[in-house]
């Protein structure tokens, strides 16, 4: 048992359990907090995978900015407790869970059938070099400069669009 495996089991189980808790809690604020926990443990998994820059960006952008935004809107709208429409529709929930479990079994079967670990082996030195800020930055500002600029315009358009939609009082 190396440290890598111990950390993978720790972060992976936190990730899976917090995802399940997130969709089962009736109170949306508690769901949002479990989603923050899920994002933080995902950042830990990214660190195990030697993606340092993405791990930091995950914490700052997802667990920081986006989830604060979600919590802000939840508390602003003060939505009613979901208990009322959470307990009815048991048939629908059983149906959905059965279908989705079938899909999960199919995906796992395909993953084991193709067994990518026989073909793909990780070279640790190369993997560490891939995820550094230096490498990502060099690649982003040379080969991927056009998508980068497009992402900037997308964010600008989204900001203006969000302002206009949230401000306007439509009938």
């Amino acid at each position, binding site marked *: 048992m*190396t440290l*890598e*495996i111990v950390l*993978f089991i720790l972060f992976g189980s936190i990730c*899976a359990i917090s*995802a*399940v808790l*997130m*969709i089962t809690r009736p109170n949306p604020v508690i769901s*949002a907090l479990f*989603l923050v926990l*899920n994002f933080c443990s*995902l950042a830990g*998994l*990214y660190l195990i*995978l030697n*993606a340092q820059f*993405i791990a930091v*960006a*995950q914490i700052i952008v*997802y667990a920081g900015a986006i989830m604060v*935004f*979600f919590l802000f*809107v939840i508390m*602003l*709208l003060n939505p009613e407790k*979901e208990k009322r*429409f959470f307990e009815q529709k048991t048939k629908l*929930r059983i149906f*959905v*869970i059965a279908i*989705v479990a079938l899909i*999960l079994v199919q*995906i*796992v079967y395909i*993953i084991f059938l193709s067994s990518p*670990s026989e073909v*793909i*082996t*990780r070279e*640790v030195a*190369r*993997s560490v*070099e*891939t*995820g550094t800020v230096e490498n*990502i930055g060099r*690649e982003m500002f040379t080969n991927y400069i056009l*998508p980068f600029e497009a*992402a900037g315009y*997308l964010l600008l*358009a*989204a900001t203006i*669009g*969000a*302002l206009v*939609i*949230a401000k*306007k009082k*439509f009938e």
Partner: protein
Amino acid sequence: MQIPIEYYLILSAFMFTVGIVGVLTRRNAIVVFMSIELMLNSANLTLITYSSYLGDVAGQLFVFFVMSVAAAEAAVGLAIIIAIYRNKLTVNIDEINILKW
């Protein structure tokens, strides 16, 4: 011993299916949105896994762009939810049926 790539892929598949269950069973529009974020993140985990195992930087760049699109999507989506809440005073997606005829 290193972790086989299958473990990451199965964890990612599990998170994705949990996200699908959340989208289909929850009735609060904001929680449905959070489930969509969960599904986006599981796809990100797969991209990072392959990027790390193959030593190719393209997967991590793609995750960066997915993050910026997710931020834009969350901003616009929550603005729409706020506008609907102003109009109908609810975020229950069973009662929001103004596009249904």
